């Protein structure tokens, strides 16, 4: 004996339309919990480490990583974990511009570990908030020009009067001043009303402890990496989040150790056999400053 309800159900299940509606409803009910079970948190905070002396090679890798992070929609906010005394001016500028692009699309915070000096400080300027520890060293806004030794290529073996040196001493002084104007101007523009130092005081190129940097506006708050990650997540509106870590220049550091063959050059700015002008946004002087040159890419 057939039940009327069973007949109706059987008939309905033979309809493609009814089956489609049921499938859609079932999918809507079952899939979101399944997604939640596999992805967990609401979003992701990426921590990008910059802890090397900035050369053209490391900057290229860091910029690529920052661009990847920017284009990755599954990453909601970024923390720059910085521990660097800077390096080449061109590499520092490239990193600054990459962070600037990144900050246009998602929240960027910075956590300064031991130091964010010179070119490293340049890099983090677009950050929404700069967290430093009391003992961190922050600032040192300026450029070092090192000049090629005069015993390089004999002038008689060049095709033009400035081919060996690249420019006159006066012109190099002007170039140095141009780079300084750019660096100091960027600090003034990015830190805006946060900074209490005058342009002249910034030009002194002093480095400050994290405690002092928070007072004078080079940094924003005292805090560590966890503070910065939480702030980044909050800025991105994440209730829960996972943290992923990237250290883009670590590969080049490892390769550098493997290829050094036990020789210690004392500086990453080294091109044997070549003397030329270098501009460095660096805390401290490279030990082989008179006889070496920054790695190729950024002074190209």
């Amino acid at each position, binding site marked *: 004996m057939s039940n009327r309800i069973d007949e109706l159900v059987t008939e309905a299940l033979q309809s493609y339309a009814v089956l489609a509606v049921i*499938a859609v409803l079932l999918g809507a009910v079952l899939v979101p919990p399944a*997604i939640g079970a596999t992805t967990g948190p609401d979003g992701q905070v990426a921590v990008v480490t910059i802890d090397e002396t900035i050369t053209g090679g490391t900057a290229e890798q860091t910029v690529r990583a920052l661009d990847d992070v920017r*284009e990755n*929609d599954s990453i909601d906010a970024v923390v720059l974990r910085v521990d660097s005394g800077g390096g080449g001016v061109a590499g520092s500028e490239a990193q600054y511009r990459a962070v600037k692009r990144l900050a246009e699309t998602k929240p960027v915070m910075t956590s300064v570990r031991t130091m964010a000096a010179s070119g490293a400080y340049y890099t983090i300027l677009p950050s929404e908030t700069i967290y430093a520890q009391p003992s961190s060293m922050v600032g040192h806004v300026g450029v070092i020009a090192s000049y090629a030794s005069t015993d390089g290529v004999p002038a008689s073996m060049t095709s033009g009067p400035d081919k060996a040196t690249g420019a006159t001493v*006066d012109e190099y002084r002007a170039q140095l*001043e141009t780079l300084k104007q750019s660096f100091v101007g960027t600090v003034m523009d990015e830190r805006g009303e946060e900074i209490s130092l005058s342009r002249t005081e910034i030009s002194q190129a002093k480095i400050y402890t994290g405690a002092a940097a928070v007072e004078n506006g080079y940094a924003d708050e005292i805090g560590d990496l966890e503070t910065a990650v939480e702030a980044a997540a909050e800025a991105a509106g994440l209730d829960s989040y996972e943290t992923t870590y990237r250290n883009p220049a670590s590969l080049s550091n490892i390769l550098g150790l493997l290829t050094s063959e036990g020789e210690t050059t004392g500086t990453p700015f080294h091109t044997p056999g070549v003397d030329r002008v270098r501009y460095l946004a660096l805390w401290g002087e490279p030990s082989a400053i*008179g006889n070496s040159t920054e790695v190729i890419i950024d002074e190209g």
Partner: protein
Amino acid sequence: MKGSKIASRVGFFALVLVIVSGLAVVPANTGSSGDDAVNISVQSHQPENILVGAPTETGDVDLAATNGSSHVVFDLSHGNNLDRGAVDPLVSALVAQDHTVSFYAGDRTSSINDSLRRADAFVVIAPQEGYTPAERAGLEAFTNAGGRLLLAGEPPSQGSALGSIFGLSTSMGSPLPLNGIAAPYGLSFGDGYVYDLERYDTNYRNVYAAPQGSFGDASVTVHEATTVRGGEVILETADSATLSSDREDGPYPVAARSGNVIAVGDASIFDSEWVQRNDNEAFVGEVLTFLTAADKAPGEPAPPEPAGPTEPPTR
């Protein structure tokens, strides 16, 4: 219902379920958005906001005509950090006015005092070695007899990459040997360098200075200059200048006169690299005019009486 019909409906159901699930899942796992064009504008990277040009350097050293011809001797006998070629502009200007120029490099047959007897003016630039008491006594006798003396020095080595690499006219020596011969005239050279972070000529170590009194009204640029204390100030920095050793603001005297002696805390201003910078050539011309206006008694200073054992040089 036949088995084939059931199978087709189960397949359809599964297909819809997979599509719906897929639509829900795919956005969550999408990585790159592919939209990577982010244009940024950095005003402090724009050339019109930051570009600094190298200064033009023009003008010739010119000194006032005098009644007679003077003999100007440059000292090269004390390890002076002085290249004869670098002072060509000065030599040319002096010779053009019929003055005589010679360089005393020291030899076994004559002393510096022998040169002083033939000289009307004596120029000491960046000596690295001290002067003996006899030499200092000779210099004093020389100026007392109307001879004129120019002392020019630099601050001690600044020890920076910039200073060591520029090399051409920086870190030309210690002021200590100069202080030994400047002291009897009440003059002394400092141990720091002046810089200016507000108003400067291309670099903060190139400081603007203004001549005082009869030494003109030109705008002078001194390069890594040290201070000169005592005497009558003839060249002074702007008040925005700072002294490296104590970080106190200026103005600072960087050249002074005491009787027949002029002390300049910047040797590089007499170097061809800097003599045409700003209006430096005008100030240098005034200094040469001062030197060639000497009215020295012929043959002075007289040879000293024979003395005891030679005393060591004093710094």
